[in-house]
């Protein structure tokens, strides 16, 4: 294990460059991406919250009336409010007040992009501290270049934000174990915000406690016997500060708190089963396939990133084994035995967090309702291990020619060779992020052959907007299928869809009908056939020759 390094000025510059670069890339590509189904619901909620913020500004006490709070904050109360509040404030100040963005959809999406880019930055910072600058950069860019991460980072949703918040909270916790009270308090605040972002937060304390027991448990017991408490101060902060932050950040639970939190927990513990195609079969009730998360990770994360992760994991395991051996070697003098936490704390924390993010997928009762986004929180840790694998491999490759000057070029050359593929895949996947699969499964055609999910959330309406605008009759109704009407309305308001076109959930009155392909929804396509009297699409949106979304004309 290596000693942590402090970040210097160049690192801070790189952090800023990474953040700006990723946000710029997201903003430059956002226009091609239709609004996902859930984004429509979050836009609607954010509008409601924005109304409350305005009222708060005008009439503070009226805004705090219980009835008023409930009226504005009941929208989408199955999810906490942190990100949706940011969506609302971004819309208020970056679209309504100062027209930073021309499209309100982009204004809603901006906080998600900003927070996602922060995840890339923190991955760099942590990788830099533990592994070195180039390895940190490889870790951060491996995360940024994952096609699914790139897709989700565009959205006004919670998945990459919760990925970032979970990473930052874990980073603060790790720092709190080394340094003073400031990081502990930061952990408490950040965990509160994480709780306010998405329910993925619930399992994190378990990972922290297990990490504490494994790295410092024996020491804590000895201290306890001596009458001293040796529990990380971050735990106290998480117990005292986080609930407060969670409460303050979510006005919906200001009243009737216990019942509403119980409802929130019950909603997610008893989440309904959605339909998900996996290896040619649509799953819709337990038992769910236990291979799902693992196969989808293999099929959607670039193989070279997984290979580096494998190297990083194995080298970490070997190091941990050596530390363990040394500690249990009777010939080693006790004072020379390094404490376990000094040697293994950070990689063990990464490993536990990674396993925690995948833990729900060990159960065949866990409903699949969103694919890779539900364990996307694991990916920064996966990439940190990839960075570790890179550091190890590049040192071994440099040793092949130890006295040659160009050995210095080996690490950057290796970095280019492991990042070029993921970069190309990420760029190519846009705007079909959820249809992208890696060469391990044969790309999009291979995935279609295997019967892996091709798309969900109805966001690919964005890919058909040009055809719709060019071919729809004046004042036509367009059947939007899986796209939420709220998402369609934002497309119209942003003038991405012609103003005279109306979105509808009724095929009967429509002139054009969209169909976003998922096998269990094909029934809807057949309804269109019966009503329109033919089965020939007017346009088919494809990714690498694989149909993803198609459009019928009456």
């Amino acid at each position, binding site marked *: 294990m290596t000693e942590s390094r402090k970040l210097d000025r160049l690192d801070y510059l790189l952090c800023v460059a990474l953040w700006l670069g990723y946000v710029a890339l997201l903003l430059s590509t956002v226009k091609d991406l239709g609004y996902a189904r859930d984004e429509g619901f979050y836009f609607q909620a954010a509008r409601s919250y924005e109304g409350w913020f305005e009222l708060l500004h005008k009439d503070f006490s009226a805004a705090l009336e219980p009835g008023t709070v409930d009226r504005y904050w009941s929208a989408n109360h199955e999810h906490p409010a942190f990100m949706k509040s940011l969506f609302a404030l971004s819309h208020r100040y970056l679209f309504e007040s100062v027209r930073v963005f021309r499209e309100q959809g982009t204004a809603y999406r901006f906080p998600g992009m900003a927070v996602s880019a922060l995840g890339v930055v923190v991955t760099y910072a942590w990788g830099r501290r533990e592994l070195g600058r180039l390895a940190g950069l490889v870790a951060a860019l491996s995360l940024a270049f994952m096609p699914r991460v790139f897709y989700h980072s565009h959205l006004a949703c919670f998945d990459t934000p919760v990925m970032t918040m979970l990473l930052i909270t874990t980073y603060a916790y790790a720092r709190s174990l080394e340094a003073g009270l400031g990081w502990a308090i930061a952990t408490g605040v950040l965990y509160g915000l994480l709780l306010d972002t998405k329910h993925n937060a619930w399992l994190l304390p378990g990972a922290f406690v297990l990490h504490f027991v494994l790295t410092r448990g024996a020491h804590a017991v000895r201290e306890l016997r001596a009458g001293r408490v040796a529990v990380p101060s971050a735990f106290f902060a998480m117990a005292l500060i986080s609930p407060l932050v969670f409460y303050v950040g979510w006005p919906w639970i200001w009243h009737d708190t216990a019942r509403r939190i119980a409802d929130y927990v019950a909603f997610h513990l008893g989440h309904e089963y959605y*339909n998900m195609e996996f290896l040619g079969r*649509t799953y*819709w*009730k337990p038992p769910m396939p236990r291979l799902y998360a693992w196969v989808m990770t293999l099929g959607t994360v*670039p*193989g*070279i990133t997984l290979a580096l992760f494998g*190297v990083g994991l194995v080298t970490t395991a070997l190091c941990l084994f050596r530390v363990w051996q040394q500690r249990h070697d009777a010939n080693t003098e006790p004072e020379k035995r390094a404490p376990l936490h000094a040697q293994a704390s950070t990689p063990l924390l990464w490993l536990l967090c990674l396993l925690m993010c995948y833990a729900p997928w060990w159960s065949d009762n866990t409903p699949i309702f969103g694919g890779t986004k539900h364990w996307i929180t694991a990916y920064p840790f996966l990439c940190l291990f990839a960075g570790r694998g890179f550091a190890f*491999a590049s040192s*071994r*490759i440099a*040793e*092949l020619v130890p006295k040659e000057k160009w050995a210095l070029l080996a690490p950057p*050359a*290796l970095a280019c*060779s*492991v*990042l*070029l*593929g993921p970069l*190309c895949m990420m760029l*190519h996947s846009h705007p079909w992020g959820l249809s992208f699969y*890696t*060469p391990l499964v044969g*790309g*999009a*055609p291979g995935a*279609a*052959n295997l019967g892996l999910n*091709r798309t969900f959330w109805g966001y690919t309406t964005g890919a058909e907007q040009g055809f719709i605008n060019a071919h729809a009759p004046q004042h036509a109704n367009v059947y939007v*299928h*899986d796209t939420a009407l709220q998402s369609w309305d934002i497309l119209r308001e942003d003038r991405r869809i012609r103003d005279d076109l109306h979105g509808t*959930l*009724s*095929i*009967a009155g429509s002139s054009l009908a969209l169909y976003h392909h998922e*096998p*269990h*929804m*094909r*029934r*809807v396509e*057949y*309804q*269109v*056939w*019966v*009503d329109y009297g033919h*089965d*020939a*699409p*007017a*346009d*088919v949106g*494809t990714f*690498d*020759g*694989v*149909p993803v979304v*198609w459009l019928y004309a009456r």
Partner: protein
Amino acid sequence: MGRARFLWLLLPIAGLAELIAFAHDAHRAPRIAEWQALRGEIAKLKGPTDLLVVAPEWSEPLARQAFGDALMPIADVARADVSAYARAIEVDELGASAHELEGWTVYESHASGRFQIRVRENPTPARVLYSFVDHAHLPFLDVMDGANVCPFTAHAVVSTGGLHGHLAFPRERFNCGGEEFFVGVTILDDQEYRPRRCLWAHPRGTGTLRLVYKNVLIGREIHGYAGLSYFLLRDGTHGPITLTTRIAGQEVESYVHHDEWGWHGFDIDTARFSGQTADVEFDVHSSDPSDRQFCFYADTR
């Protein structure tokens, strides 16, 4: 360590190999323009009673767009099965082939662009004498809901259930009162969510819905399939549905269908009536009064 230390060089090689594989995958499937370029050739090859099939199945929307519904009409795409087709044109990409046509003789095969085109012949095509789905209108069919006659209309308002709702209720139907109580041709989703064209026959409550086809040419069997929308009723929580068949007033067989079976075949031996022209009655009944969205296909052969 020796030469083993050079194994680390496999990492950059793997990174670049993945990039090459990615570029290959991205371009290996034909694009819509290539499908469209194939249309003329397919139109020449395909006779009016031939079936046009594409493989892999996921590429079918591209074929339907490129070839149009003249070459791929709903009746073919949403077929009950392939047994009645004597000849098929198979268009394959990526080395796939249509499982449905396994066992059919390849009469001709050639490459065209990135496609493989095969003309196949069914070694034992069934000769359909009468399709009950194709004759689901006046003057061939009368429908009775108990003692009440269900009038036929060719101008009903089409109703579709959308994302979570019922199958399409067609324009042409025998209305038995109440939106879902009718007899008419629609398309259901089978257990693989593929389309199946069928005759909707939803009995009211625990009553019996009777379909009477007049002057039907009877063969050696009635070949059929039955099902309900698999997406809507696959959990199998409802009671079974019974389809009772009578020829010239004589009961020949009752078929009992369970929702969770999906699209399920049945064959009724009619050899004793073979060659005769007679009335055929189908009675649809269930002791479960709710959501009996039964839909079936049948022909004489």
